[in-house]
């Protein structure tokens, strides 16, 4: 049995058991009834609505935000990353400053900044578009992630020996052609594990968007706890931990598999 599979099985069984143990330790004799309450409220936690009539809240909103923010960050990150390795030193320096500012800003601070910096609505070609908390959250999350992706991009490209650039140049290739035909195809596989790690971080980071007023899983939990009482709060938060774990852990394991595969290819 390979080591990732063992870690996976251990984690996917062990961590829920630990959380269950914690749950039982908190609620003692009430554990059964509390688990029942959790099950009853699961649709609301997952979708934001008790009868699953809409799918734009709860845990699904966290997943949706993470995917959209990742897509935006990927585009922004590649553009910034090309800036980081640009031939002109001014472009390089500006990109470097932008990248460092964004990468070193606490995500929560960026989200708060979005809340106060972005207007309530904007006019695009005469049409007023409301910037919902959801959009603010997505933009706020994608900024630091884009900076991280830019850095991953630069790292991946610089991991390819300069001799590859040189032999391509001696064959008449130009800079962008070299990037596209020779460097990126080799660098992309190296970047994938890091990209997955940053995605997992982004996904976990979506739990911060509650500060923007977006209806994610935490805001759904807050609403529920307001009716079920504060003594149920621990149970709900343990349950939410479990849900995040279920989503993020397989990504982490897959990342490790890929890292090993890539390592063995380049050896």
């Amino acid at each position, binding site marked *: 049995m390979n080591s990732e599979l063992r870690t996976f099985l251990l984690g996917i069984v062990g961590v829920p058991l630990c959380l269950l143990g914690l749950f039982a330790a908190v609620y003692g004799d009430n554990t059964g009834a509390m688990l029942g309450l959790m099950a009853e409220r699961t649709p609301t936690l997952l979708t934001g609505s008790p009868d699953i009539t809409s799918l734009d809240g709860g845990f699904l909103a966290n997943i949706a935000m993470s995917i959209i923010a990742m897509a935006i960050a990927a585009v922004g990150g590649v553009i910034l990353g090309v800036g980081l390795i640009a031939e002109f030193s001014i472009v390089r320096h500006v990109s470097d400053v932008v990248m460092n500012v964004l990468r070193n800003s606490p995500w929560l601070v960026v989200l708060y900044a979005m809340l106060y910096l972005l207007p309530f609505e904007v006019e695009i070609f005469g049409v007023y578009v409301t910037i919902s908390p959801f959009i603010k959250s997505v933009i706020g999350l994608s900024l630091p992630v884009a900076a991280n992706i830019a850095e991953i991009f630069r790292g991946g490209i610089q991991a390819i020996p300069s001799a590859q650039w040189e032999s391509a140049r001696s064959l008449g290739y130009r800079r962008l052609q070299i990037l596209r*035909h020779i460097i990126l195809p080799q660098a992309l596989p190296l970047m994938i594990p890091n990209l997955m790690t940053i995605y997992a971080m982004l996904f976990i980071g979506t739990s911060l968007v509650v500060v923007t007023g977006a209806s994610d899983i935490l805001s759904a939990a807050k609403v529920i706890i307001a009716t079920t009482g504060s003594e149920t709060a621990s149970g709900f938060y343990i349950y939410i931990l479990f849900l995040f774990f279920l989503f993020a852990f397989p990504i982490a394991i897959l990342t490790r598999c890929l890292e090993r595969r890539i390592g063995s290819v380049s050896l």
Partner: protein
Amino acid sequence: MTTSQTSPLIEMRNVRKSFGLFEVLKGISLSVNDGGVVCIIGPSGSGKSTILRCINGLTPIDSGTIRVGDFSVESLRSDKKLIPLRHEVAMVFQQYNLFPHRTVMQNLMMAPVQVLRQNADEVRDRAEKLLAKVRLTGKESAYPGELSGGQQQRVAIARALAMEPRVILFDEITAALDPEMVSEVLSVVRDLAAEGMTCVLVTHEMRFAEEVADEVFFTDRGVIVEHGPPSTLFKSPSDPRLKDFLDKVL
């Protein structure tokens, strides 16, 4: 050629190049005739690789002139302007520098198709002939990592030839090879030289230089100390630095 006084294919005149404060080339002049085979020998760090890199414009020079055929290399300042030169001047490196993510066949075909925009089918025909020439028929779909060093270097030579160059620059192409693979690579170069391909070789294989070269240049600390036909240069060196060098390497 109707005149006996043909002008050389490559002509470097008084080429200087510094990296920062360190002057690597201190007025290099050399010429290579069309179809000629020239070897450059000299101690490590004397500027041999830099000379080759200046000839195909990989390293821009500070002063002097370099002419290759009709191109005045020092005036080609962008990679785009350098494309026609790189079509004529190919280079083979010590570490092969094949593209590891592409098969042997793709390594040969990429630049002619993507850079020179030649027809893929024609390039493939040519590439197959070149693989036969370097005795690697059957390895078309192998990846560089699956080949021995000697085989990779022969692929690199075939890749250079696929550009249909007038000149090939060889930079210590056997220095990274296990001894038993040196001869298979050298025999490919020997064939090329015999067919009249213009070759400039930086090499530590003195016997090979003696055998194939029309002229040998000895460099030391950025200057050409002595040059001439191999018979005189190796048998009766006049400069003490060359004598010293030959004592060490022979």
